[in-house]
């Protein structure tokens, strides 16, 4: 990508602001239900599983697996220069939740389904944008 981070148009809904600021301390957080313990994404006002309102951001490992991806090769947004990878990452904590993200730290052609990845954060104005890079577990 170009000099500086690309325009990301982050303007969060009420329950989602923490998602974009959590990375300030280097930790990815997902909304978690205090009653049943499930993770919820995107975050909402009530737990979809048990309807509890005891919901708080909970830190997760930030490790996961690429469930699928695409290499975007067309410029849709000036300043967001192709090619770049958009991926859906299944987190280790709950593989039914998929995190949309860009995969960075490797050539776009090296991204594959099943690849292990780990979160990092891009500082973008007031936000910390979760991105993922390949995870070397050897």
């Amino acid at each position, binding site marked *: 990508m170009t000099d500086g981070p*690309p325009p*990301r*148009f*982050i*303007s*969060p*809904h009420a*329950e*989602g602001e923490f*998602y974009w600021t959590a990375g300030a301390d280097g930790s990815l957080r997902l909304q978690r239900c205090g009653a049943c313990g499930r993770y919820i*994404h*995107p*975050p*909402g006002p009530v737990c979809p599983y048990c309807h509890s309102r005891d919901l708080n951001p909970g830190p997760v490992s930030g490790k996961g697996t690429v*469930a*699928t*991806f*695409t*290499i*975007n*090769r*067309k410029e*849709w*947004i*000036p300043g*967001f220069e192709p090619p*770049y990878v*958009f*991926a*859906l990452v299944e987190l280790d904590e709950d593989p*039914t*939740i*998929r*995190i*949309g*993200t*860009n995969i960075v730290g490797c050539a776009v052609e090296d991204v594959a*389904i099943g690849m292990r990845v780990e979160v990092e954060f891009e500082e973008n104005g007031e936000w910390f*944008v979760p991105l993922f890079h390949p995870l070397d577990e050897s």
Partner: protein
Amino acid sequence: MTEPLERQAIISGAAQSDIGRRLYRSGLDLTVEASLRAIEDAGLTVDDIDGISTYPGMGGPFGGCSGAELHDTLRFSLNWRDGAAETSGQLGAVHKAVLAVAAGLARHVLVFRTVVEGSRGAVRAGGGGGGGMGGMPPAFQYLIPYGVTSAANWIACYAQRHMHEYGTTREQLGAIAINARTNAASNPKAIYTDPMSMEDYLGIRTISDPFGLYDCDVPCDGSTVVIVSHRDYAPDAPNGAVHVNAMGTALRHRPSWDQFDDLTTMAMRDSASSMWERTELTAADVDTAQLYDGFSWLAMVWIEALGFCGKGEGGPFVEGGARIAPDGELPLNTWGGQLSGGRLHGFGFLYEGVMQLRGTADVQVSDCEVAAIGAGGGPESGCLLLTKGIR
């Protein structure tokens, strides 16, 4: 099975406005043109129309025309009206019209979808490129920041997973695009009509892997109108009645582009199965399928969802194109689909299904008595089983 309510309804009229890449005419203008043609086609007058149903209604994506604009322009006197995007895909407007007629709320409902996407050079769904995303539904706020403003990106992810799990190939997707292009050559309203070879298909620039440009439909301007009437009117419909046999409306998992439970299919899995739950006809009875190809892969997954082949077998099913050709076992998108005919946003498939059952299509399937129509991708999905005569 007690008779499903939708059997009370027929399609008594159908018409389109002029269709083109850029017509520089307003959505209302095109809608009026198609409406007057459809009303005449149904043997009716403006005064007979007592209902309007449209997708997506005022303020919806891809421009067009609202029901209220049309209502006011033609000075209809309505007993029932509806226009909204939160429904069973684009065909939701038809589903609701059918229900209104079956419930006796209206007798002749004018149903339309109008797009003026070509002339507007409209920004694709998601509205990337301009300002922030205030007002964007929360689900999209986790996609747009990653540079994916287009359904091309979102659907590409599913296609990629389908390829990974089932071995689906680019050539198999290409068979859908080439079939569409071949059929479009006989459709005077189609946008792309030049012959396309597999080499052409594979050689074009990539948009978002695995989709090349020819896997993506073409924006256009145009309006499609059908008149949904009570079946009592069938004997009086001058161009014959197309009967509604069953409707598919279900969405049984998360209404999401990225959090659906299965990354190798989409909401059509549910709408298709709910349609077959409402009829004794089966996939084997279908003479032609007109299936949404906003992206080539969507048509493949509609084929799987409707049970024309097993899950994951869509690639081998369409490979080579013989099965889906007009003289094949499942003639597909005989008007050229949205890939070559133009993005009429679901209603091009509906119009073609009506023409096939009337026997007046440009590329006519022989002895066509049952047509399956499926529209939508991602969480937007709905389908119709239409028949010639009551089945």
